[in-house]
């Protein structure tokens, strides 16, 4: 099935460097995962549950990477996502855990904060034409600082603090039992997923459809491809850029809720370096840093690759967790270099 997806995307006529990057990504994921299955076959790696765990642990990352892809399509970047997640998680934990506010208002508040955060960044980038990196870097430090302003301690959300949120976090959606495996005692354990996985997959599908079939989605590609000609075509470049950042921060807030459902806590150090995971996922998934090229299916595979690296490092058990960061950074570098080589070849052919 994965192969057909590649073929459909890159029919021979349009098979260019960009589709090639996507193909490399999917191939890389398959190779990495298979290697993991062979090397760690006695540690439960080949089970379907391990594969599903990739989605469960990375649900937040998948949401964030979708937003990041939208921003990167316009040629920008958003490095504030990690801090925004920390701020949102802290807010959720503080509001529900310490203040005892019910779950639904807190979730709505977090989503609203995402929109406001994105609107401010988007206005500065779109209308005042300040470099996206500077603005979102200020956003990064602002978010991290605000997390500490809300509370400097680590807060865990326990069952008696908020029953509803707890039940969301622990809800299991069990898949048919024949997909499962039999454990040592002869009992069949059915694989399961969590609601966050459904949220993440819904985000991927919605953003995929938006990018492909709506006016806004195609405008993102146009703005990233060439802002001048997009403006000549009558697109409101400033507004579209601003909307992209709002979308990114909003998806980041959804991601933060997924992330918080996983960790059930808020702390100042949470999600540090999350931005590089999101950016790496997008870049590995074939989104060009210069804008105009990319799609969320690639980003999804980017996230899975990212998750597989972490999974491999943790399954190994002996390696330091920093090796996962190093590997992600190295992979990001490799893909950035590949991209720039493709771009150079393209320019030469022209």
């Amino acid at each position: 099935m994965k192969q057909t997806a590649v073929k459909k995307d890159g029919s021979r006529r349009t098979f260019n460097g960009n589709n090639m990057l996507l193909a490399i990504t999917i191939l890389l994921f398959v190779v990495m995962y298979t290697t993991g299955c062979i090397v760690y076959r006695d540690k439960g790696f080949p089970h379907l549950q391990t594969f599903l765990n990739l989605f469960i642990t990375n649900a937040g990352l998948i949401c964030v990477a979708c937003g990041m892809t939208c921003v990167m399509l316009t040629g920008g970047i958003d490095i504030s996502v990690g801090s925004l997640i920390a701020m949102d998680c802290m807010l959720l934990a503080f509001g529900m855990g310490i203040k005892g506010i019910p779950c639904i208002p807190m979730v709505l508040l977090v989503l609203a904060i995402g929109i406001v955060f994105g609107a401010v960044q988007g206005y500065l980038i779109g209308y005042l034409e300040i470099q996206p990196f500077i603005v979102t870097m200020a956003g990064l430090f602002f978010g991290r600082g605000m997390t500490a302003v809300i509370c400097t301690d680590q807060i865990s959300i326990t069952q008696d603090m908020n029953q509803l949120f707890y039940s969301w976090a622990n809800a299991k959606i069990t898949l048919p039992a024949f997909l499962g495996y039999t454990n040592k005692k002869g009992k069949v354990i059915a694989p399961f997923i969590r609601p966050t996985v459904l949220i993440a997959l819904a985000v991927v599908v919605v953003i995929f459809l938006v990018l492909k079939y709506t006016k806004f989605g195609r405008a993102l590609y146009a703005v990233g491809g060439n802002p001048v000609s997009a403006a000549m075509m009558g697109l409101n470049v400033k507004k579209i850029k601003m909307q992209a950042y709002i979308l990114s921060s909003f998806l980041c807030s959804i991601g933060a809720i997924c992330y918080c459902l996983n960790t059930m806590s808020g702390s100042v150090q949470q999600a540090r370096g999350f931005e590089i995971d999101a950016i790496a996922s997008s870049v590995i998934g074939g989104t060009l840093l210069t804008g105009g090229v990319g799609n969320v299916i690639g980003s999804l595979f980017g996230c899975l690759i990212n998750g597989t690296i972490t999974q491999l490092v943790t399954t190994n058990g002996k390696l330091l967790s920093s090796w996962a960061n190093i590997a992600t950074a190295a992979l990001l570098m490799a893909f950035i270099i590949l991209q720039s080589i493709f771009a150079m070849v393209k320019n030469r052919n022209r």
Partner: protein
Amino acid sequence: MKSKWKALTRQQLFLPIFSLIVVLLINLVKDPGFFQIGLQNGVLYGRLIDILNRGSEIAILAVGQTLVVAVSAGTDISVGSVMSLTACGTCMMLAGYGNNSVTELAVPMGVGICFGLLLAFLCGCMNGALVAKLKIQPMVATLILYTGARAIGLVLCNNQITYIRYEPYKYFGNFLPGCPIPTPIFIAAAVIALMALFLKKTALGLYIQSVGINSRASRISGINADMICFWCYAICGLCAGIAGIIASSRIYSADSNNIGLNYEMDAILAVALGGNSLGGGKFNLSGSIVGAYTIQAITTTLLAMGVSTDQAPVVKAIIVIAIVVVQAPAFKQMLANRAARRSAAGKEAVG
């Protein structure tokens, strides 16, 4: 009078010096003891000395960052992580791999420090190669080391905090025996003087500006633009290394998770506050340095007011946004339009 005031505000050094004065005045009002300088145990102490001392790292980083901003219209966001990597590399060499607390050095101190600086230099070279040769946006290129370098540092130190309990190693971040002035001030002064001399005596400063303004035109006029850009990043890496050794020596250890944390923000803020355009081109080293000490004054003030280190970034983020908004051409255009509209409306009303 009005035109004189305008001419004054247009001076590049106006913004940093003005903000420095404002920060110091706030302190004077809040706490008159702020400017006291005393002598204790044969060394100077006092808030002002503290600002000069603690500001050394930012000043050194700002030197490198200014060049990078000028030459490539982008910033090097890896400096904080490179500081951490340098500290870890140095301490790892000095302690021997795997040891987390030593009183005797495994190798001579010079070797360890050179190793650390070499690592920093290589990081700078890597950034430079990615930006100059592969034409990758500077911040994306340096983003790789922003996360990578800190992680490599953790691996070098085996996920531990490595302590070097060896007296001479503490000299760089504290005091030389018999000297009342903290050593970092000397190191910062030396780096600044060296760079200023270098820019003044060679054509490098001119080249950097010309590459920053139009790299294509400077290449056509015979400047090796890629090479200039590469070296700026390499110098920036080296500066981060020097700052890293000072930071590590202050606490005579390599705390990978905390050394250089949020320093990239301070360095960029120093450059922006110094009146340098983040869009590249013309630059003014002295502006950045005054900017750096202003930032440190702000940090010290915030800490004195009881704001924790974790919370301080909020204020700095707001300042950085305010500065870039004021600098932004689109914002100036907006203001000009508004003023024009107002004067037009005024004329109509009169007419």
